[in-house]
């Protein structure tokens, strides 16, 4: 369903449903309420298939809302208000039940017998197998994400019978099951996909790019790239409770000022991912959910290839010189969670955690004097122009570092270049970063951000003990007696070594006016399934 949809077949599609909403003309504004929700979003959806090369983040919502996975995460209350997904609880989606063998290597799923795709055909283990094979074979992001859960090759997946599916792991891993609940391993109607595959395109990338074929709670009624995406409820959804809203319209509105006017006027019910400033100002007038993003830290990275940063005293001096409070106010408008001024002693495995550092220029000067660079040095401070929080933070850091003799020039790097310079070439000496891990365990964060050579380790940090600890804990169950001590040791090392200086934990802000049931997800996209008019 793309913009190829003509008026005629669009109306036909609508007429096929049991109760037809008058989409055109006769829908007065007042009648939108219960059956239709309008969501505005600043980003563009560029594909309806997450597995495709070049599919952007905003498009992941299609995987969430239109496709099912075998399992999903439960729901919990957030202390600051609202709901969030619950990493600790895995709940069924298309799988009715599952069991793990005693050696932890085989996970067997029973698929819900009543689960059907939109075309009425039954969801079988063969569909699951085909979809998982696709995710590990197409390359790029889906394959990398599958690998994080130990899912690397098609021969690990088997359909025993129509309703029984097994995953065989190379080693037991606590990440395997949660990794099946992320947006990547979604289940595709393989019969439809195969019918539209060609020899050049065995995974039907071209077809599914514009035409989803799933079993999810919503179907894509209409997609106009750059303008809107319209979801319509699938009344036969077996993956969970039937959603309350019949139709959800997601409109793209690039200007934050315009989005703000729309939500304040109440012409739209949800404004997703609003700037921190708007969240702070709208909080009195509307319902605003600002959920700290789990396992995500906005931090300053010190590249160990840069000579002064090889000096432990310099790194500590910088950590004491950071104007944490001012950054949290200017960059985040106090949305999110502070990560400074904690205890040096580490007693739990919570991550992100408050560091033992806070703004103390005397301490910073003391460390500078002890270092090999008592007179300071010059270093460029690189930021991305795409991320709004970076510029105010960089200006404050520049001002503060000048006081301890570190002169910085702010170097703004645009979009595509940022990833190349910061993450791929890892050539930025002093820069800001905001990595967040989907799977909410500290070892997973460390795997990406502190292990040598990994993408988000833009500091080129290499510590043999951390390498070893991450390798040991990555797949270890969290209730293993060895787990907590090892994690604490990891925290201790990196907070002493400081290749990354944590600043604060950012928040995802969502303003709601006339809707309820919003739930935060780690993928930072809107799950429209639990929404209701309110």
């Amino acid at each position, binding site marked *: 369903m793309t913009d190829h949809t003509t008026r005629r077949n669009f109306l036909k599609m609508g007429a096929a449903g049991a109760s037809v909403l008058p989409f055109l003309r006769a829908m007065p504004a007042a009648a939108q309420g219960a059956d239709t929700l309008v969501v505005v979003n600043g980003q563009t959806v560029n594909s309806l298939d997450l597995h495709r090369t*070049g599919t952007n983040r905003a*498009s992941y919502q299609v995987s969430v809302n239109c496709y099912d996975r075998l399992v999903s995460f439960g729901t919990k209350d957030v202390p600051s208000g609202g709901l969030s997904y619950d990493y600790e609880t895995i709940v069924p989606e298309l799988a009715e039940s599952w069991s793990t063998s005693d050696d932890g290597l085989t996970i067997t799923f029973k698929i819900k017998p009543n689960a059907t795709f939109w075309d009425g055909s039954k969801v079988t283990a063969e569909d699951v197998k085909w979809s998982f094979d696709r995710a590990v074979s197409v390359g790029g992001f889906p394959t990398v994400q599958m690998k994080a859960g130990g899912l690397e090759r098609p021969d690990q997946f088997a359909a025993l019978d129509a309703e029984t599916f097994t995953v065989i792991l190379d080693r037991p891993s606590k990440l395997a099951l949660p990794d099946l609940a992320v947006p990547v391993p979604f289940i595709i109607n393989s019969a439809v996909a195969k019918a539209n595959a060609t020899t050049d395109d065995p995974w039907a990338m071209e077809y599914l790019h514009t035409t989803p074929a799933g079993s999810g709670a919503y179907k894509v009624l209409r997609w106009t790239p750059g303008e809107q995406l319209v979801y319509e409820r699938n009344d036969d959804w077996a993956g969970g409770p039937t959603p309350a809203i019949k139709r959800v319209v997601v409109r793209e509105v690039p200007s934050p000022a315009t989005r703000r006017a729309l939500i304040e*006027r109440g012409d739209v019910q949800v404004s997703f991912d609003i700037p921190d400033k708007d969240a702070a100002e709208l909080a009195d007038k509307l319902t605003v959910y600002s959920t700290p993003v789990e396992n995500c830290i906005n931090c300053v990275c010190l590249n160990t290839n840069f000579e002064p940063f090889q000096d432990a005293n310099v790194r500590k001096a910088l950590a004491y010189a950071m104007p944490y409070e001012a950054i949290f106010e200017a960059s985040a408008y106090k949305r999110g969670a502070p990560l400074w001024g904690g205890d040096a002693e580490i007693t739990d495995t919570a991550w992100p955690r408050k560091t033992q550092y806070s703004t103390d220029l005397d301490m910073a000067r003391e460390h500078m004097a002890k270092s090999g660079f008592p007179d300071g040095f010059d270093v460029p401070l690189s930021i991305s122009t795409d991320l709004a929080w970076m510029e105010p933070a960089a200006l404050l850091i520049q001002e503060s570092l000048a006081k301890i003799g570190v002169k910085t020039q702010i170097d703004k790097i645009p979009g*595509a270049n940022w990833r190349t310079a910061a993450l*791929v070439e890892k050539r930025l000496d002093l820069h800001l970063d905001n990595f967040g891990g989907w799977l909410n365990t500290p070892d997973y964060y460390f795997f990406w951000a502190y292990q040598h050579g990994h993408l988000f380790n833009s500091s080129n940090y290499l510590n043999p003990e951390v390498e070893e600890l991450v390798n040991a804990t990555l797949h270890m169950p969290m209730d293993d007696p060895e787990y907590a001590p090892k994690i604490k040791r990891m925290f201790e090392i990196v907070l002493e070594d400081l290749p990354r200086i944590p600043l604060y934990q950012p928040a995802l802000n969502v303003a709601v006016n006339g809707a309820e049931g919003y739930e935060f997800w780690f993928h930072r996209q809107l799950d429209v399934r639990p929404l209701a008019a309110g």
Partner: protein
Amino acid sequence: MSSGSIASLMFALWPRAKTLSSPAYPRLRAIALRVAQSIPVVIGVVLISFLLTRALPGDPAAYFAGAAADEASIAEVRTALGLDKPLIQQFFIYVGDLLEGDLGRSLSSGQAVAQDLAKRLPASLELTLTALILSCAIAIPLGILAATRPGSWVDHLCRVVVTAGVSLPTFFTGIVLIYVFYYLLGIAPAPLGRLDFIYLDPDHVTGFYLIDAALMGDWETWSGAAKQLVMPAITLALFTLAPIARMTRASMLTALSSDFIRTARAAGLSNGKVLYGYAFRNALLPVVTTLGMVFSFALGANVLVEKVFAWPGIGSYAVEALVVSDYAAVQGFVLAMALLFVVLNLVIDLLYTAIDPRIGFSSK
């Protein structure tokens, strides 16, 4: 744009340029000649846009490999995009596709570039043309009045309006209009792009919603589209008032002080005849030239208006493509613009000959 490949254009025009040499069609022949002359320009644009996009420092493979890509998956993406091949080979592949009418596929929008352009160019043109018509309707009479009564209140009003128009950035005017007419007063419709979500797009004929809806006789959608168009068009019109009004005023002043007007007045012709029959017609040439220029920069200035009003136009498309080094989209955009300006220049030249018969087209 979708089927308008360069190849078909070239092959369609070359033979015509030769066969139309008979003096019976001087204008047609001249047009064909002009189009033929533009071919080297288009070839140059193809080459330069290709080289310039490659010269951008970003790495699209790294960008589009996604948030958690490693070296291997970036390499896979690079191969999938054909970016691992030598530059020369990439160029020939690009030109080969172009000759088949294939502009490639945009990574950032996920659509064929030709399809994107076919959808977005009319959106921008509809907005720009409406704004220009509005702007001319205000600026030209204002300029004439200011010229016929220099130093009067009309002249001052003209000066104030154009100064204000040109000094207010479009995104600012846009946000102020939204704030006042939508947020405070609630008169204007929600700034949600070309059509509110309760309407369906009219069938695609020209891509201009007003024209397409009118062709279908769907006046409800027509008025929906017109309402959405009002605020962005006013925003853009305010911005383009200045050069048109100033140029009208200046060229009217020149014309009115020239000998032939004095003669006309001496011959006792009516004021209206002198003003509109002789002075204005002569003053129109520089105005038309300015209009062409204004049109081109208005199309560029669109970007900000498009962002504020969520208008799915070509400006924001190009800027987003450029930011993420989306080669095919940037090249497609540059090429479309080049072709558009070839046509625009031709239209302006034709207008010249229509306005002033002394200008011989064939002599150019």
